[in-house]
């Protein structure tokens, strides 16, 4: 507290250079890439699940995440640490669980990032054909994006705040304008609220009720990935306690509003009885068809904003993967070489290179095998990665319950117990629905082995992480005590570039 009539030079200086909630929310929204969601995720949701009330699914997930965010931000106020989900899992449930969470995060974010190359390749190829009459294979477009991400990511270059703000504002304005255009040109001349009817969430063209709901929730979940990264910026924030809170809920609220309004408006424009078929036929062009009344120039701008949205999301996810690899390497969970940073740029260079190689390998594989970049690459990998992050958030939610019960915040019973417990129950239920209906999510036959192969991968990673943690603990490896400390200079053991001969262990 400052004495009356005085001012703090230190406080004023730090405040001037810190970032506020709006800036942090901006970073979160960039990772979430709202335009990519509306164009890629929403349409695919209709096409794959046949469920009309996809917007309701988005709203339901937003509500569940809001419950999660109550405990999450309460924990973030206590633990100012950039490791977020991984660190909270280690602190709440123990270090072996933290390792499992960290490995799951690395796998899932990588999978999502790689999947986005399919989208940018397909969209860029389509736009080049549409506007310039030039035919360029999707994988060449994807490789160009990959090269740019590799260069910018290795130098830790991201879009500046102003560029981000402009592009993000453009994205959000366009999709809202498209929605308004859709409402003003309703199919059949009247506005239908069928897509907002929760009852229609349980009616699916596939004929199986819960499979559609599970798939919608899993798809809707991927739309919000990015909101969980607010604690990464807590060190740079004006007021870490408030900034994380406001940025998390602010970005969640904005995303929920957009994801509810725009898809509903699209269903009004196309017609609720035709939207599923239209999504299956038009794929990523569905939104632009709805936006046609805005004029050709606006639609062209929309196409360009889609490309920048996907690219910004690609870069943000690349950096997320590199940072997780850095955090895990720094704490000795992964080989310490993964903690190597470029001294000049602070970029987590080893993690960046590893992620770059992963992306290249995936693009090469899909191109060689002739697999579809939108369905097999973008949608499948987004679904796989998204469910992985859903599992990660569920583990974190349980960790938050455990932590807040042991270390209750001053905020009361609802924050400390009720909200975290309810969100854990909800998240576990959603996980169960998603895993149980995985084949519907992927759009494959119910008997397809993919229905258990991909979920088994999560299980393998989680079990491997737990085992690795137990091994480290049993062998009293010095790295074990550092897990969950975040990016700190740990005592002695971090100083060793390789295991020392003898000494205290």
């Amino acid at each position, binding site marked *: *507290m*400052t*004495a009356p009539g*005085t*001012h*703090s*030079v*230190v*406080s004023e*200086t*730090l405040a001037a*250079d810190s*970032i506020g909630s709006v800036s942090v929310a901006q970073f979160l929204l960039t990772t979430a890439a709202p335009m990519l969601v509306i164009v890629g995720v929403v349409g695919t949701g209709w096409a794959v699940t046949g469920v009309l009330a996809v917007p309701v699914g988005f709203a339901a997930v937003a509500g569940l995440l809001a419950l999660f965010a109550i405990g999450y931000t309460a924990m973030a106020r206590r633990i100012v*640490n*950039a490791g977020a989900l991984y660190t909270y899992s280690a602190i709440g449930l123990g270090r072996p669980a933290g390792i499992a969470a960290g490995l799951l995060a690395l796998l899932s974010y990588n999978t999502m990032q790689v999947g986005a190359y399919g989208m940018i390749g397909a969209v860029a190829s389509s736009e080049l054909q549409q506007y310039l009459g030039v035919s360029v294979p999707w994988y060449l477009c994807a490789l160009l994006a990959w090269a740019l991400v590799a260069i910018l990511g290795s130098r*830790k*270059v*991201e879009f500046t705040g102003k560029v981000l703000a402009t592009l993000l504002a453009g994205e959000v304005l366009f999709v809202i304008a498209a929605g308004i255009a859709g409402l003003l040109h309703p199919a059949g001349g009247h506005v239908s609220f069928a897509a907002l009817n929760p009852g229609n969430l349980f009616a699916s063209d596939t004929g199986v009720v819960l499979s559609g709901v599970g798939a919608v929730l899993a798809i809707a979940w991927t739309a919000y990935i990015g909101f969980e990264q607010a604690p*990464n*910026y807590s*060190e*740079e924030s004006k007021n870490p306690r408030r900034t994380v809170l406001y940025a998390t809920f602010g970005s969640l609220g904005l995303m929920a509003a957009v994801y509810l309004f725009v898809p509903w408006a699209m269903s009004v424009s196309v017609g609720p009885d035709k939207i599923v078929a239209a999504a299956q036929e038009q794929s990523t062009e569905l939104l632009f068809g709805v936006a046609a009344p805005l004029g050709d120039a606006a639609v062209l701008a929309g196409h360009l904003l889609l490309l920048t949205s996907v690219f910004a999301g690609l870069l943000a996810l690349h*950096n997320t993967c590199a*940072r997780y690899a*850095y*955090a895990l390497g*720094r704490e000795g969970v992964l080989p310490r070489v993964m903690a190597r*940073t470029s*001294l*000049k*740029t*602070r*970029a*987590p260079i080893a993690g960046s290179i590893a992620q770059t190689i992963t992306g290249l390998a995936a693009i090469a594989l899909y191109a060689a095998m002739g697999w579809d970049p939108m369905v097999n690459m973008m949608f499948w990998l987004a679904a796989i990665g998204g469910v992985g992050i859903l599992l990660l958030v569920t583990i974190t939610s349980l960790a938050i319950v455990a932590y807040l019960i042991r270390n209750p915040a001053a905020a009361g019973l609802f924050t400390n117990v009720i909200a975290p417990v309810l969100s854990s129950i909800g998240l576990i239920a959603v996980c169960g629905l998603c895993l149980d209906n995985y084949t519907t999510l992927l759009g494959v036959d119910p008997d397809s082995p993919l229905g258990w192969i991909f979920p088994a991968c999560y299980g393998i990673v989680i079990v491997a992480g737990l085992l690795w943690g137990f091994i480290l603990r049993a062998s009293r490896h010095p790295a074990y005590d550092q897990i969950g400390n*975040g*990016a*700190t*200079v*740990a*005592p*002695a*053991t*971090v*100083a*060793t*570039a*390789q*295991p*020392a*001969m*003898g*000494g*205290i262990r």
Partner: protein
Amino acid sequence: MNEELRVADDLFLIALDDRTGQHVVDARTLGYGLAGALLIELLLNESVRLVEDHLRPADKLPEDAVTHRIFDLVKAEEAGRERHGLAAWLKFVEKTAIDDVYMRLRQQRLVRRTESRRLLGGSTVRYEPTSDVIAASIGWRPQRLAVMLGARRYERGIKTAADAALAVLCHAIGLTQRVLKDADGPEPYAYLDEIHRELARSFTSIYQVAAGVGELAGSATFTNR
């Protein structure tokens, strides 16, 4: 050049590539390291104390203008009943640390700063030794630390708290590999481990500052600021 330099001056020079005149770490990371070094100088001089993560002024005045200015601010904030944690002080001092330490080195006639404009805008700052003799001395600074870290077996290792602080600060901002690039075997690293442990036991405040520097430098990797 004297063999013994102030901690911050030494860190500045260890991080400097005397051939290019540029630092091998980015400005923010170096700033955190130098900020930690300046606070450690105040701690070693017993001008401030670290009490439960808060800096409190003590009776002994600092010996140079830069640390004196920090000391005055600590006193003023204390008088205004403003309590800032260690991280806040590090972030605050970081903002001018590079310039402040450069000015001290310039007064000692060790380096001078030159600035050249780049073709596409911006400028490149270089810190050049003032003579060839000084250049050789600057090049010796990381080697001096490496020799001490490698000399434990001869009972000639690090003897002073200042040098121990320098070693852990170098580690906190990622300079260990640079310092020990010619190290023979794992012993210098194990010795660095021991120095960390010894500081944590016997000079807790210094260790806390170094840990704070490492935390800020590490966290900076997660953001693009």
